[in-house]
């Protein structure tokens, strides 16, 4: 793509890299972006939002160089529309844990503890990645759980625990780490079969393909992995 005036496209200044990234990556990517700017001298601008909204934006011609999604399904939307440049790579994984109020007052130790009659549990809706993962894990454990709510995303589920509205929620380990003041995370074995992959790709319409590739490399570099690991992600 050789558009003459990148400014007029709304993509911003010439030396600016635009990264569309899932909202759950905000803290990690902001740090990675700072490192990258320092190392490469290229300004990085992030557009954090829900992965699905980002995918829709990209497919409608949004001026983006890199897309980092929170689920392969959202990435597939972009790839299928022919808007990616090359194959996406998985740069991080996230695993489910049981979030309970700090100190675990109900003594939850396993998925089956969530099926007690008076237990209020929040899980994500199946349409969002953490919900799909929870379904998988519950099926694997053979647990028939009736949650009080199917949340729109992990943060919402987690916030229900933080506010004491539910007794437990199935969320990602990264989320529990970020909210360590209020919640404890209980690991459970069935979660290993329900890991969620985060793919990243350079986009076809990228104004700065070289810098974009450099950023993807940076995410997959040791520095990148360290930052992601610190946030609670697993790295491949």
């Amino acid at each position, binding site marked *: 793509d050789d558009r003459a005036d990148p400014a007029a496209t709304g993509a911003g200044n010439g030396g600016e890299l635009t990264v569309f990234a899932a909202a759950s990556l905000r803290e990690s990517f902001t740090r990675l972006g700072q490192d990258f700017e320092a190392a490469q001298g290229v300004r990085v601008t992030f557009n954090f939002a829900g992965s699905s909204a980002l995918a829709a934006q990209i497919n409608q011609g949004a001026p983006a160089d890199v897309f980092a999604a929170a689920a392969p399904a*959202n990435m597939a939307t972009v790839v299928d529309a022919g808007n990616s440049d090359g194959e996406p790579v998985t740069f991080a994984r996230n695993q489910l844990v049981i979030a309970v109020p700090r100190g675990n007052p109900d003594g939850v130790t396993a998925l089956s503890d969530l099926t007690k009659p008076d237990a209020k549990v929040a899980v994500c*809706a199946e*349409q969002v990645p953490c919900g799909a993962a929870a379904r998988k894990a519950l099926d694997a454990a053979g647990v028939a759980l009736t*949650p*009080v*709510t*199917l949340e729109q995303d992990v943060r919402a589920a987690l916030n229900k625990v933080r506010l004491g509205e539910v007794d437990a929620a199935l969320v990602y380990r990264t989320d529990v780490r970020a909210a360590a003041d209020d919640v404890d995370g209980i690991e459970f074995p069935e979660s290993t079969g329900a890991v969620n992959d985060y793919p990243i790709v350079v986009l076809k319409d990228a104004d700065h393909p070289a810098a974009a590739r450099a950023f993807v490399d940076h995410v997959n570099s040791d520095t990148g992995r360290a930052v992601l690991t610190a946030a609670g992600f697993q790295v491949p």
Partner: protein
Amino acid sequence: MAGGTARARPTPTVAPRGTRRTGRTPVALLVPAILGLLFLVLPLAGLLVRTPWATLPQRLTEPGVLTALRLSVQTATLATLLCLLLGVPLAWLLARVQFPGRQLVRALVTVPLVLPPVVGGLALLLVFGRRGLVGSWLDSTFGVTVPFTTTAVVLAQAFVAMPFLIIAVEGALRGADTRYEEAAATLGAGRWTTFTHVTLPLVAPGIAAGAVLGWARALGEFGATITFAGNYPGRTQTMPVAVYLALETDLEAAIVLSLILLTVSVVILAGLRDRWASAP
């Protein structure tokens, strides 16, 4: 003011319409009006273009869709009633009674308007939630918890919709001629009777406008609902929540659901408005 019988007379000077004053519609008004209409309607066209018409009938018959639709219409209607019940008196208070701090109250009423709905839902949790200011008392006294119930949906919708109703009704009350209320008083009507028998009928168009605003806002409400009431099919999953979740996986599905929601609301509003729009 009555509708009147329009006499069709295709003349350069425009056919007069009933008892209304007539004349050519000025371009300076017509052009922005049409631009405004296009601006509001074009995006709808954008959605229609992307609609997968082939799969539409199948989607419509999916059981979850109808459930969510029914729940949406029911809760929005209940929320509107709640808004009317609490909001009209509050609007009246703001418009007709002078009390210290009235300006502040008036500004506070707009708070739910400005609050991002998700934060509104959060705030409702902080008050009516299991650990909330009022909710913990409700729980310990009556064993009642509000969140994750259909009641919570209604409350969330009412919370975001009420300011619209209040502001619209207060505007109507301020525009109404208070001398009719004076006349009622001299005929022995107290403030309450005057309110019900004179003020309310006089500002009926304003109240109707406010109710329509509130209903539509409640029908489209998503953020506060999902935060305060959660998402459970048949109990708290309204259409906007269903749309949002569909959006996560399937753009077309979300568009179809939105169009269903829109069609129902346009049909209901067009039907209702036929009644009240011709009244005054």
